[in-house]
């Protein structure tokens, strides 16, 4: 009897790896190759139908490799299945328009959302799924393992070791999945150095290195100019701090991007400190190094911050605050999106963020008609992880509010903070999310909902706070949402009697119920009122990019 394994080849992936390297060698393409030869290399080592992971998220971009791949010959390279955290650059969409790539699995498409929606309608692209970051990384180790990955690093040495520096971000997760399953790893670097400050990716995991003609692009995505924070945002921040942070004693948390959360960060050393909350809230964070965090760090409010990525202009500051940020022996910060997302999922007691639309079940979405935006990290942070087992006071209190004193599990606080109308009087609260229309136009199985209503614990608007944990029926939940929806159609259609009852029971709390006078919500409460204030507060260590300098 023949053993069943004798007829099959058990190292086809390794052989494929060798075959690809042999093709590159036959063209005399060296391991460290000049930028002019990159297209030849890509056409030699990538095969039609390959899964290609192109590094790029809402911050760091392997933009030179993206442009190079987009200028390959579609007769040679076609039907590629692209795996990407973020579809952000024009070259990313070119891949599909030029017929190089056919299928896409991704998380977020931000600035290319309109072009992506058109490609879907013209059937020039097949979307596998829209993921949250951690979910996409997870699939790299399951059914979406890359055949080739194209990554970005700060520097390489002669041996091919890589230094990714403060913007390490997604690189470790991508390289790990590719290098250990027979894939080809190609890195673009900004410079070659004789010795690296530290080794973030060992040379043995890297097949090719190319020095890009320009440094990789990094978007200053998390910078918010305090000068643009409004009084309404200050008011909502006061309500959140007093009515949620203090109430639950939230120590470990993540903040979504935006002016609403920037306002909270800037009220910590002033308003929150005056309430005696220093050391009692906001000590540990999974967060990018937001410049608006500087005053709270300098005031000793914050003990620790682990970062998904870095932020343009913050490198010298984070290096000089190694007690707070995770830094290497060389002194520079190391970020890691996969680990920070894990911290955001399991180790945070609260996520607070904003959205564009919310329906009467509390489902929220940033999808709007004609635009496929995706999710990024929000669905991961903004969900209650049923796998969590360790206890904290905030988690326990939320769990007991939701299920009574006999609760056998806690709850993560998932807070949505929105002004009831956005600019141009677009209502945030709606009967039906645009996501449903988008589902139809995409032919998707499910609408692209960012945060599910049953994960939301609180909604903060200028009108008050709705505590959905305390609602005991879908009808109560609906009225609690209407009760903070202000003068939107949805808000004006509230049952006033029921809403007053919810207020009596503390399910809805108005500013006055929290002891907050809206007239005192002024910008004077902000610990910094301009980018220049932030620079000053950092002792000159924060170096904002040009577009944020107006002095």
């Amino acid at each position, binding site marked *: 009897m023949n053993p069943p394994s004798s007829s099959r080849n058990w190292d086809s992936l390794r052989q494929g790896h060798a075959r690809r390297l042999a093709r590159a060698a036959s063209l005399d393409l060296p391991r460290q190759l000049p930028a002019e030869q990159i297209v030849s290399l890509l056409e030699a080592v990538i095969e039609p139908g390959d899964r290609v992971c192109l590094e790029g998220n809402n911050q760091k971009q392997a933009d030179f490799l993206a442009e190079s791949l987009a200028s390959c010959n579609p007769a040679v390279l076609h039907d590629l299945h692209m795996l990407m955290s973020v579809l952000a650059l024009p070259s990313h969409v070119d891949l599909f328009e030029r017929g190089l790539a056919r299928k896409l699995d991704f998380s977020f498409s931000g600035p290319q959302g309109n072009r992506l929606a058109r490609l879907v309608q013209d059937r020039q692209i097949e979307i596998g799924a829209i993921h949250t970051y951690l979910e996409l990384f997870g699939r790299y180790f399951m059914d979406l393992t890359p055949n080739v990955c194209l990554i970005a690093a700060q520097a390489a040495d002669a041996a091919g070791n890589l230094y990714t520096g403060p913007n390490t971000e997604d690189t470790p997760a991508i390289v790990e999945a590719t290098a250990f399953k027979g894939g080809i790893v190609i890195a673009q670097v900004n410079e070659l150095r004789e010795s690296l400050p530290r080794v973030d990716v060992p040379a043995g995991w890297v097949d090719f290195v190319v020095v890009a003609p320009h440094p990789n692009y990094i978007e200053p995505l998390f910078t918010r100019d305090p000068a643009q924070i*409004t*009084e*309404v945002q200050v*008011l909502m921040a006061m309500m959140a701090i007093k009515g949620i942070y203090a109430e639950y004693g939230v120590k470990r948390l993540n903040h979504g991007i935006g002016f609403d959360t920037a306002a909270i960060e800037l009220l910590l050393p002033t308003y929150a400190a005056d309430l005696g909350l220093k050391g009692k809230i906001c000590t540990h964070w999974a967060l990018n190094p937001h410049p608006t965090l500087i005053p709270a760090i300098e005031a000793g409010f914050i003990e620790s911050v682990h970062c998904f990525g870095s932020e343009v202009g913050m490198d010298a500051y984070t290096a000089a605050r190694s007690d707070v940020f995770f830094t290497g022996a060389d002194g520079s910060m190391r970020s890691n999106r996969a680990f920070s997302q894990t911290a955001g999922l399991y180790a945070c007691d609260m996520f607070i963020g904003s959205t564009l639309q919310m329906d009467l079940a509390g489902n929220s979405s940033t999808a709007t008609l004609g635009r496929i935006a995706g999710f990024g990290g929000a669905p991961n942070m903004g969900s209650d992880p049923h796998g969590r087992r360790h206890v904290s006071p905030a988690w326990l209190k939320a769990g007991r509010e939701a299920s009574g004193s006999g609760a056998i599990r806690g709850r993560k606080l998932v807070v949505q903070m929105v*002004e*009831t*109308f*956005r*600019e*141009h*009087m677009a209502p945030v609260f709606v009967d039906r999310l645009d996501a449903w229309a988008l589902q139809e136009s995409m032919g998707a199985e499910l609408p692209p909902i960012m945060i599910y209503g049953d994960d939301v614990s609180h909604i903060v*608007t*200028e*009108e008050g706070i709705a505590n959905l944990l305390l609602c005991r029926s879908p009808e109560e939940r609906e009225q609690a949402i209407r009760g903070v929806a*202000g*003068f939107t159609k949805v808000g*004006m259609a509230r049952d006033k009697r029921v809403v007053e009852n919810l207020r009596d029971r503390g399910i809805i709390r108005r500013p006055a119920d929290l002891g907050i006078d*809206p*007239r005192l*919500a002024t910008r004077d409460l902000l610990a910094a009122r301009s980018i220049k204030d932030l620079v000053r507060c950092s002792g000159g260590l924060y170096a904002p990019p040009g577009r944020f300098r107006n002095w």
Partner: protein
Amino acid sequence: MEKLEFKFPSQPGKISPITALCGVVGSGNLEILVRTGSDADVCEVSIKTSARGFGEIWQAVLTDFAEHNPAGGTRIFINDMGATPAVVSLRLGQALTEYLGVAQ
């Protein structure tokens, strides 16, 4: 540009000798002027707004304001550049406080 005129019953406030001015005319913001009106039980409001077609929302915001504040006996003028209801409510509160503050 749209012009709107409203009158709301409201609890009489104190008569103040001053004219209160609050806010600025800028994108997403508004300017509110409060001075003494002719009828002690009425809050009379004139609005000039750059955003057309939101009369119903203005009426709802101002009804709520007149119900919950002693705005009787005031004459209010608003120059609006697309402020959201949240900003309008906040500014109305600030403007009335400033107006009544001097009367106390």
